[in-house]
């Protein structure tokens, strides 16, 4: 439904040029909720604006629905207002000189698929019903709360049933409680409408909880793409491991690669570890292993010496309610570990920790 190929965009400023988007490629099948996740300045919003047609890319190709809307080599540029999209902006961009109804009716009256005035009433009311704003249609836009403005923006974006919905950090201006509510509501709405959605955010919780697939961006490039589960549990890149939650990193030397399994063995300070080999490496290479603090299992005593199991001493501990956040030391190597809060541990305790081999992966070649 949406295909982006080798997209490039460089901004030239007084202080030199910045490569904002650097060879971005991805494909979103119909009905999928796809998220671009990254810190500010990673190029996610520029990518979105190139797709919307609000920015002109330097290189690449964009296919929206079944239409080629931008191609550098074929010299094709479909202007923004002819692209079949709906868009929600970070500032909501609700027009203050119009009522709720007029805002939502705008795409139908002045947009690409104009319909008769009598049909407009019907469509607008339906869209307002979908975002639960029935009854507010005659309210002037300046008299709306932040949450209501956001719903109006959403209704305006979906009212003419676009092929692709583009959402540019739509929840970032809401307060925390409302943001949580809207997360589920928004997800639910696009699922029901079966609209292909491209979502841009810097918030990992939004990305993980709403998306079918997530692409993590850094410095204008997509560094990892996958389901939220893949992205979070087995980051394949140091940046992804660092940006999404906290991670442990261990340096080691590859000693063995088991062909056909994507697995191997790496020698580290805590001993030999069996892990996923996700990079092109050879035995003898030095690599960095990454794994989540929640990846550990506490092994029963006596299992020492089993695969990926080692003894560790708790050096500090914080009780955080849902979990116990500990720093442990293994041969002087500090590691962050989340433990079951119902179990009682003390600082100084020595415990056996086990990491299943699917929970740690190579994230960088050193």
């Amino acid at each position: 439904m949406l295909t982006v190929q080798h997209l490039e965009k460089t901004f030239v400023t007084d202080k030199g040029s910045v490569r904002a988007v650097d060879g971005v490629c991805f494909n979103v099948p119909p009905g999928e909720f796809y998220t671009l996740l990254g810190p500010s300045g990673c190029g996610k919003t520029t990518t979105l604006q190139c797709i919307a047609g609000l920015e002109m890319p330097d290189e690449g190709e964009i296919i929206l629905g079944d239409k080629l809307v931008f191609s550098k080599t074929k010299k094709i540029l479909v202007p923004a207002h002819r692209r079949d999209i709906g868009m929600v902006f970070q500032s909501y961009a609700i027009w203050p000189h119009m009522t709720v109804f007029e805002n939502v009716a705008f795409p139908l009256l002045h947009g690409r698929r104009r319909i008769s005035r009598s049909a407009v009433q019907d469509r607008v009311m339906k869209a307002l019903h979908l975002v639960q704003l029935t009854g507010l249609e005659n309210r002037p836009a300046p008299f709306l709360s932040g949450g209501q403005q956001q719903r109006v923006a959403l209704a305006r974006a979906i009212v003419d049933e676009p092929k692709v919905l583009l959402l540019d950090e739509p929840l970032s201006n809401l307060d925390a409680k409302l943001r949580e509510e809207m997360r589920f509501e928004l997800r639910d709405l696009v699922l029901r409408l079966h609209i292909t959605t491209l979502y841009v955010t810097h918030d990992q919780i939004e990305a993980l909880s709403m998306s079918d697939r997530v692409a993590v961006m850094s410095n204008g490039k997509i560094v990892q793409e996958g389901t939220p589960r893949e992205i979070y549990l087995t980051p394949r890149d140091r940046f992804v491991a660092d940006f999404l939650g906290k991670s442990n990193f261990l340096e080691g030397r590859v000693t063995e690669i088991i062909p056909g399994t994507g697995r191997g063995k790496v020698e580290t300070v805590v001993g030999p570890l069996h892990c996923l080999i996700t990079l092109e490496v050879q035995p003898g290479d030095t690599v960095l292993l990454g794994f989540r603090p929640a990846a550990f299992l506490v092994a029963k005593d006596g299992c020492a010496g089993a695969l990926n199991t080692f003894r560790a001493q708790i050096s500090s501990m914080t009780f955080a309610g849902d979990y116990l956040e500990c720093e442990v030391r293994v041969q002087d190597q500090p590691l962050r570990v989340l433990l079951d809060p119902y179990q009682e541990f003390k600082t100084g305790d020595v415990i056996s920790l086990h990491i299943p081999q699917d929970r740690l992966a190579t994230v960088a070649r050193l």
Partner: protein
Amino acid sequence: MEPISLADKSVPVGRQTLLTQQQIVLPLLTLVAIVLVAAPLMILLRSSLLPAGALPFDTLSVTFRNFAAAYGDPATLRLFLNTAYYAGGSVFLGLILATVLTWLVERTDMPFRTVIKVTMFANMTIPPLAYAFGWIMLLNPNNGALNVWLKNLFRLEQHPFDVYTLSMMIFISATELVPTMFVMLSGLFRNMDPQLEKAGAVSGANYFKTARYIMLPLLTPGLLSVAIYMAMIMVQAFEIPLVMGLTAGVPVLSVYIYLLSSPEGGTPKYGLAAAFGIGLLVLAIILMVVYYAATRTAERFRVVTGKGFRPKRIELGHWRYPALIFTVVYFVAMIAPLLALLWTSLLPFYQLPSVMALNRVSLKNYLTVISGTKVQQAILNTFILVFSTATLAMLLSGLISWFAVRGKGKLTRLLDMIAFSPLAIPRVVMAIAILLLYIRTPLYGTIWIIVLAQVTAYLAFGTRTVNGALIQIHPELENAAIACGASWLTTMRKILLPLLWPHFLNAWLWIVAHSMRDLTLALTLMSPDNVVLSSTLWVLWSFGDVPRASALLMLMVVGLLVIVLPIQLYAAKKAEGQG
């Protein structure tokens, strides 16, 4: 572009346009701006190098005789000095009056502050000609009302005042400058952080010391930039020097250039006028450069912290009385000439106010002046002039500002610069240049040549106003419309224009008022067919028909008030509704 074959890929191309609307509008707009601003200046330069009696497109020969004649003459130095004295004097005096008044209104607890503010804003409807005529009726050496009264009261040998002197010209121009300066300065005073003053007071300085050592140095860059800006306006001032300066024997550059191009007898000396025009242009450009340098310093000294605060007003105590007296005297000076004008407009011939004269009071002048066909033609012309000028200037300004603020690239920056440059082009110089450019076209002699000149002149004001307003509008509001499928022009029409409407209306109104007041362009480009109200006034006055000139002036002031006040109230309400 060649037709695209996509047979190799089963992806059809979306509906595309060869050129976007912006890509069509931007070059057209730049072309219009160049024709409006740059072309007349080039013709001016060409004309200054013409042999005597020739017109720009007649010949290719080049001579420096005009420059030699203009700048070889020792009288020219006098001309420049007169201009400098007049502009410098009126700005200096005006700034002192305006600073005191602004400080009293913005920073002290003086009574009637709101009344003073409103009066200052309403002043924009009063043309400089009204002051010039009014003061002449009050202070002319023969039968000026004030002169006669004072002479009788104190049994003087001679009339105490003579309006036809440089110092009186300076005084009258200064009082007329005060409202504009007041508007410019009030922001400066209002936004000054009172903590800076408090810091001074805590260090043990009394109020006068704080004012001297803390406030004044902080305000200096701001005051200086207002002064230079006003000097830029005053070196090209035309009305008061024309009405008084000639009789006073103090010709200034702008009037002299006008007389060269429209002599009472003989043929116009366009070449010489252009040579002097270039001198005046250079003077204005120097002031413009200095103004830019000064405002940059003002940025460095920014006393506006942006925090919301209510500055503490200084309690005047007993000083309230001198402050009130000062204010009352200023307002009397503003109102007296208008009263003189009103009085004269009601009498069959000019005479001093007396009980006997009161019997002759009637509205007859108003009726006769209004029933004249020439005046009716002038009223019609004026309507065409002010409404087309304001509408065209705002339309162009709106488009230019959009490209200047939202656009990228060198062309948009060039466009912005071209639109701003008319500020440094003296009116009379622009009038001559436009006259020379269009003298052989059917445009010459019609009302539209004045429209053209005024649109050019108000482009600077229009674009500055819209630029300022547009910066405050979030670009996502426009992007949202485009993402909804609206074209660029629809977005401008349906989103931006309604949002900017109050600003547009205010600027439009300002241009209407100033376009009606303007005499420089209307007079220099005047022909029998394009006479407007301001030039009619001048003609009536110079033929000695003082009562009817006064009546027409009063009608013009009232007419402007009737147009300006309701629209301003509407715009203020509209702006409030959106805020």
